[in-house]
């Protein structure tokens, strides 16, 4: 909108329709009298549509008489007319202002608090703290000092690693990250044992303090004592010490998997059958009564529901179902290729279980063929530190 048009809007103008036979004459007379008219469109042979200002409209009357035409106001546009309308409908205007104010007022309060990332801390605990700091449902959101609340939470709740509070409209999103606390350290003056963290075959025991209970070649189970903190020697009193040392053992990781050498693929024939289902709560209404014409098919469903507003999801939904006819194609894959793929698959799985940075001593892979299937079993032998301190009592 150009400046000129904006000016015209504020001054107010009328769209007029002039009927007559000598319309050119009318235009010429109007110009001669200095009346400004614009956007002149000839609708048909006898009618003309034009726009003119409010004052000019009054002056046009004499022009009309002179040129022998008839004039009619088609539309009134502009600020003065708008104001006039409002003056006659004051309550409507008041309502509009009031509703605007209400929207503004309602949107400056916190309506909802969402807590994300919570694992072990109870929701209640966080909520009570937030409540204490002023962030509660119904709080005036412009008065909240989110940074202050974040800092306060970090100081007072030592289980938190990070807190972020974000206002999204009337919803406060509190994101927390909990601390992963390290295993409790046993004080040096506390007597303790060193026990096995997992099953294995002992390779090396380095007992710095305490009595080594396991020796090379021993098979230990999880929880077995490896270095004891109870030292009992004949003729001496039993001593309790803080066992310290390293225990290395061979540990074994095992993984099995299988793969088919015969693969059936579903190939689409290109025939499609579509149907719609209307759902209200759990009631489904199928909108076409034809049966599914295919024996083998792939089903593709799409759901279309009304946009959810806040947390309210309307229970109405339309489900589009597309049935694609398919035929099965059987393919036999070379065994070597299957074995290769199987090996890689299994390796990925097994490496996920093995902790990083430990030496792998041995690797055994066995294949077994069964009808159209190939089974594989992989075993990895590693050298690992398995000792972990545990209190005596």
């Amino acid at each position, binding site marked *: 909108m150009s400046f000129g048009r904006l000016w015209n809007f504020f001054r107010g103008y009328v769209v007029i329709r002039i009927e007559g036979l000598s319309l*050119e004459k009318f*235009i010429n007379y109007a110009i001669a009298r200095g009346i*400004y008219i614009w956007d*002149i*469109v*000839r609708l048909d042979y006898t009618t*003309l549509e034009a726009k003119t200002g409010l004052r000019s409209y009054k002056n046009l009357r004499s022009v009309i008489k002179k040129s022998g035409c008839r004039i009619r106001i088609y539309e009134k546009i502009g600020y003065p007319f708008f104001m006039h309308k409002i003056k006659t409908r004051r309550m409507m205007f008041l309502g509009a202002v009031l509703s605007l104010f209400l929207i503004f007022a309602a949107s400056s309060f916190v309506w909802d608090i969402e807590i994300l990332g919570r694992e072990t801390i109870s929701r209640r605990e966080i909520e009570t703290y937030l409540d204490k700091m002023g962030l509660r449902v119904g709080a005036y959101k412009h008065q909240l000092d989110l940074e202050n609340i974040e800092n306060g939470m970090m100081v007072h709740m030592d289980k938190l690693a990070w807190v972020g509070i974000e206002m999204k409209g009337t919803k406060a999103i509190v994101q927390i990250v909990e601390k992963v606390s390290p295993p409790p350290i046993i004080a040096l003056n506390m007597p303790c044992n060193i026990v096995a963290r997992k099953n294995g075959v002992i390779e090396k025991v380095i007992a710095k303090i305490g009595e080594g209970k396991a020796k090379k070649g021993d098979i230990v189970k999880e929880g077995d004592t490896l270095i004891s903190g109870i030292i009992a020697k004949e003729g001496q009193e039993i001593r309790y010490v803080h066992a310290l040392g390293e225990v290395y053992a061979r540990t074994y990781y095992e993984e099995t998997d299988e793969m088919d050498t015969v693969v059936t693929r579903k190939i689409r024939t290109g025939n499609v059958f579509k149907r719609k289902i209307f759902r209200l709560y759990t009631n489904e209404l199928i909108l076409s009564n034809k049966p599914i014409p295919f024996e083998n098919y792939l089903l593709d469903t799409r759901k279309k529901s009304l946009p959810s507003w806040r947390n309210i999801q309307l229970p109405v939904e339309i489900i589009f179902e597309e049935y694609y006819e398919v035929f099965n194609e059987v393919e036999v894959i070379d065994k070597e290729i299957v074995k290769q793929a199987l090996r890689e698959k299994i390796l990925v799985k097994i490496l996920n279980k093995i902790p990083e940075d430990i030496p792998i001593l041995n690797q055994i892979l066995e294949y077994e063929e069964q009808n159209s299937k190939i089974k594989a079993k992989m075993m990895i032998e590693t050298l690992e530190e398995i000792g972990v301190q545990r209190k005596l009592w």
Partner: protein
Amino acid sequence: MQSRTAAIKESISELLELPKDIVLDLPRITLIGNLQIYIENHKGIVEYSKTRIRIKTKSGILRITGKELMIKNIAAEEIVVCGSFESIEFMM
């Protein structure tokens, strides 16, 4: 006589390098593509319809033909016509 004064006026404007539209009271026409025509110093409208507009000027009647013609603006001295023009010609 008329043509003689006109001839003298033209030679004077030539001599003094005065703009001819002022000295000779001729229209100044500006065209923007075939979408808008701006005519200064016109003498009134002779005919006006959606497909044809005729405007009186000092150098004869200017006839514009085209589609969806519309007088965007009109004042005592100037006129702006919009639409898509097909021909613009002077008729003496």
